[in-house]
């Protein structure tokens, strides 16, 4: 099946239709997505700041990861699931949206960054886990991680502003009076 056919079949699935037809499901899913992503981001920042030697430096790096990464992964699965539920409701539009595409590439790069870290500084973690900061490769991975995740959050917000008519920005010079029409008939 080609990609257009795949996107169309995803969009017409029962699940996607149910979410689209509900007034409440999409807002709820989007709110839960924000909740998940703030935890993914916040917990990753704790690990990155430790690698950079900025915060929690008196705690061994391995203590922090064993404390925190399980929450990061749980929040990531939560966020990815809610993200996919939003995607299927309007798959074709999201697929062709450049902010969505950029976000997906950056997510892949963030994953690659973790993999490279594990293969470099991660291999020698027991030599430096009590040091104030990680070796150079580890610090570079931390900076890259922070830049990637902050950009991912920005991209996510821009997807919302470029894929939904209802959230399109108001025209400049808006007159608030226009927003208060006489009440509609009940």
């Amino acid at each position, binding site marked *: 099946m080609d990609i257009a056919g795949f996107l169309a079949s995803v969009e017409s699935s029962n699940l996607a239709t149910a979410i689209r037809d509900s*007034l*409440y499901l*999409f*807002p*709820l899913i*989007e*709110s*839960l997505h*924000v*909740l998940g*992503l*703030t*935890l993914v*981001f*916040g*917990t990753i*920042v*704790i690990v990155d700041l430790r690698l950079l030697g900025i*915060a*929690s430096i008196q*705690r061994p790096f391995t*203590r922090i990861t064993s*404390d*925190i990464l399980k*929450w990061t992964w749980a929040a990531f699965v939560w966020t990815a699931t809610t993200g996919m539920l939003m995607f299927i409701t309007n798959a074709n539009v999201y697929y062709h949206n450049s902010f969505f595409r950029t976000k997906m590439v950056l997510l892949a790069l963030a994953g690659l960054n973790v993999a490279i870290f594990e293969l470099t500084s991660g291999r020698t973690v027991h030599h430096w886990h009590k040091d104030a900061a990680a070796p150079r490769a580890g610090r570079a991975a931390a900076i890259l991680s922070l830049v990637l995740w*902050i950009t991912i*959050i*920005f991209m*996510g*917000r*821009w997807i*919302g*502003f470029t894929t939904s008519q209802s*959230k399109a*920005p*108001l025209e*400049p*010079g*808006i007159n*608030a*009076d226009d*927003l*208060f*029409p006489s*009440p*509609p008939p009940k």
Partner: protein
Amino acid sequence: MTSAIREFAEWLSHTSPSILIQTHNASVIPTIQSIHIIAIGVVLTSVLMIDLRILGWAGHDQTLRETTDRFGPWLSWALLVLLITGISMVVGEPVRALLSFSFWLKMFLVALGTLIATFLQITAKRNEQTLVNRRTVKSLAILTLLIWVGIVILGRLIAYDYVWGSWSLKPTA
């Protein structure tokens, strides 16, 4: 009450800071919202870490004091960022925010959360040894976490105030 809020929102939308944000809204509003979300990440995670320590689910190698010393300053600074970006969003889109039921419910939860945090800080300072009743502190930890989860969800729901039906002050389009 509602007409006073409407009049205030209308007046605010005609002030020059509001017009400045409105005329640049295509990039300014998503930028402010993104910074707001980043700051929420710092706040929510800091609250989570302190609460997990209180509940004994994380940070066993740290005392509660060490945990609050680590996350307290980040929490305070991120809250300041939330306040600044939050006010900017209200100024930039007064009607969207001030006539939304989610916004006022969110503000109520912010006030409630602040009250509980202040109470905890005062009691912690007064009797650092016993730190009130342990069960009370643990319940308050879970309560503050739930309040913050509610605040995050309601924040996003400001964009969809119709979910509240007639509770929303917004004119139906």
